[in-house]
């Protein structure tokens, strides 16, 4: 049964957002001019969810990496695996686990309803045994080793460990070879039965679809699925950081750096948007900072930046390559503190606003990008495209107010050289 449906419009597009009686949220965007469709069936469960209680019961702690492990195993069933089912329809299927979500997806240009049925079926029917768990430990062990050879990933995980003392966002999504060795089929079922319930889950689809028919099918398939209440562990994360610098040695052509500033978590959509705009204005390719760093040969061709956030954690993160990371970060700090005092210019603000708007428009060109935005809304509880509405209303004063709130003493740098 469908509890309610609303239509949200933006830029000639419509999102149909429905909530079913059992709590499942369904976000649908019809693109009749497209040939294909992209669909995600996901859960608000990720690597940070290492402590939880179901339906008011006792809290349990689970090994690091179990959400990702579960994602791998869910493709298997007693009769075979989901990939072989998708192979019969020609769809391309995959899945991913992040800090706060796990998503199962397919894209196809034919047989959409058959693929939707497969997706809804395999995600809702887990099958774990001691033998299959043991086999997967080998495969995931190899995946962990692959990431250990990635300087970029090492840089990022080390930065999170500088910034966060208690919050499990500092734990690697895949866990460690030791932690995944503790995973059992029983633990997998326990995590599955807690987090893979309709109230905690969502379906997001964009492409050549009939929204009403898709919604009807999803409702018909899932209407008897039972929900439960999940209480996620709270972590007493202090405002302070753990350490302001970490250096990791591994062979790289040029040292990599990541400069992170710990922010107050859960600041709301408007302030998150302002912070993203600030980062674009301060660090983007048209910025004075970027010009200065390039002039002084302090960075490579890019200075990456993002506002990294989730429940209970957020940080401004900038990264790049530099022959002298400490000097580069010192220059960046000096620049930010100067702009903090003097204020951001109207030109920089408006340029960044236009760039962010343009990027938002471009997202509508790609079904996968549209679904990515909808998944973010589902996980964080945002209203789709509310950020576009807010973007037009932001002022230079908003940006400077937010800039003054950023505490540079809560900053750390991670280096790989």
């Amino acid at each position: 049964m469908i509890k309610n449906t609303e239509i949200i419009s933006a830029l000639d597009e419509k999102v149909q957002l429905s909530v079913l009686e059992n709590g499942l949220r369904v976000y649908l965007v019809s693109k009749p001019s497209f040939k294909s469709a992209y669909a995600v069936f996901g859960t608000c469960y990720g690597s940070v969810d290492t402590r939880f209680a179901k339906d008011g019961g006792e809290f349990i702690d689970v090994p690091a990496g179990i959400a990702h492990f579960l994602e791998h195993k869910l493709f298997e069933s007693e009769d075979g695996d989901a990939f072989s089912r998708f192979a019969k329809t020609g769809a391309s299927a995959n899945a991913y686990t992040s800090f706060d979500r796990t998503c199962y997806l397919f894209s196809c240009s034919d047989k959409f309803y058959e693929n939707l049925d497969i997706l809804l079926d395999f995600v809702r029917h887990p099958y774990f045994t001691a033998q299959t768990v043991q086999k997967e430990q080998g495969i995931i062990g190899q995946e962990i080793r692959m990431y250990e050879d990635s300087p970029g990933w090492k840089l990022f995980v080390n930065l999170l460990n500088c910034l966060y003392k208690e919050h499990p966002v500092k734990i690697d999504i895949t866990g460690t070879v030791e932690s995944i060795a503790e995973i059992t089929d029983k633990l997998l079922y326990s995590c599955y039965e807690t987090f893979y319930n309709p109230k905690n889950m969502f379906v997001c689809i964009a492409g050549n679809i009939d929204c009403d028919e898709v919604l009807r099918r999803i409702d018909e398939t899932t209407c008897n699925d039972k929900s439960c209440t999940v209480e996620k562990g709270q972590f007493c994360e202090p405002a302070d950081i753990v350490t302001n610098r970490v250096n990791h040695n591994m062979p790289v052509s040029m040292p990599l750096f990541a400069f992170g500033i710990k922010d107050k978590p859960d600041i709301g959509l408007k302030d998150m948007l302002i912070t993203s705009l600030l980062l674009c204005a301060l660090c983007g390719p048209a910025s004075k900072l970027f010009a200065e760093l390039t002039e002084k040969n302090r960075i490579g061709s890019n200075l990456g930046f993002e506002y990294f956030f989730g429940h209970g954690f957020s940080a401004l993160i900038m990264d790049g390559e530099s022959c002298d990371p400490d000097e580069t970060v010192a220059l960046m700090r000096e620049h930010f503190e100067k702009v903090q005092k003097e204020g951001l210019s109207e030109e920089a603000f408006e340029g960044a606003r236009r760039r962010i708007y343009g990027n938002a428009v471009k997202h509508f060109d790609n079904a996968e990008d549209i679904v990515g935005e909808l998944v973010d809304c589902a996980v964080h509880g945002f209203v789709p495209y509310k950020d576009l509405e807010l973007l037009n209303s932001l002022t230079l004063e908003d940006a400077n107010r937010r800039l003054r709130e950023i505490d540079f003493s809560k900053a750390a740098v991670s280096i790989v050289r």
Partner: protein
Amino acid sequence: MSYQKLYDGIDFIFQKTNKFKTTLLSVHFYTKVTEENAAVNAILPYLLIGGAPDYPDFTAVNAKLNMLYGAELTCKIRLLGDIRQTSIQLAFINDSYANNPILKDATEFLHHIIFGRFERDYGFLEKEILREKRLLCQQIESLKNNKRAYARNKAKELLFSGEPAGIFCYGTTKAVEALTAEDILSAYKKLLKTARVRITAVGDTLPEGFAESMSAAFNMTERDYSPLPDDIATPYGETQTTVERMPVIQGKTVLGFCSEQGGDDLETLPMYVMADLLGGGPYSRLFLNVREKQSLCYYCAANALRSKGVMFVDSGIEPDNANRVSEAVQKEVKALAEGDFTEEELQTCKRALCDALQALKDDQVACEGFLSSRFRQLKEADLDAFTFEVSKITAEQVRSVAAKLKLRTIYTLLPEEVQEQ
């Protein structure tokens, strides 16, 4: 799709569609790659997008892009067999989503980026050359950061030794450092004058006279175009085995196979299908047998380079499994060569390929990439026609091309302390 020949060696394809909210304009130059021209042709596009007479540095260029609502100006360099493709692209939002019209401004901006220096007799400044040399050298060195890409590149160098396809498309740091302003200016003029060019537009509207203005700009260069040679299929030879050791945790192994049957036309399509059946997706032989059943690797993928008649299989492995992985891959290739696969497996692979090809129509960048990579054969630039040809490939065609494969190269990257078994 509308096709227009503008000049000898220059064509223009407009994929008119209103399904996107943006327009993507691209100018692609195709040239033969040599050791002597690799570095200069690698630095050139970066210099072009980094400044122009009316936008003297990248800050000015990016300030302009901001005002065009975050338009993206990018350059790409890649090898298509023995030919280098150098691309400059501009993507921007449609006028209906902007507060002020930008279509004309954006297209004139792209024109200026590509032709401005030639039209105004404006060279390349020492300051910008120094910056781009530094960045290009860093980019060449940074290949080592991505171990999978590094291993694939090393295998290519070995398999294509002595051939243009074996030359790293950015050249060497030594060659980059030796470049002068005169070298670069000369290469720029030569590119405009002699390269094979394809201009593409994917979007709803173009300003009137777009193709004509591009045509007129190339006319000013006094074109002197000679058709590009066909790629030469890599010949059979002794199998070379190379092991390199670096401080890594996961090993990599890349196998290179030759068939001596190259070409860019539809006759080489069986190799495309065969490579996918072998190691394309989670339905493929390598995924199911080498990864899932034998747990020998985390990934194991096959890719064909049809124009050269070669196929690469690359895997991420436990270091002490290197030989076992190599043997397992060769066993699967042999099975295909002997016809030891079912019609269902072939149909599964073709379904996945056709489905993915049709989905390209909804991806502006991928759709444009398809048009630009098929610069030799206009027929192959038609996605529906290409999909149809893929669907017709038979088991016998797949078996036949697999039977021609001979292993030429095994490149393995191992940690420093592990002994091979």
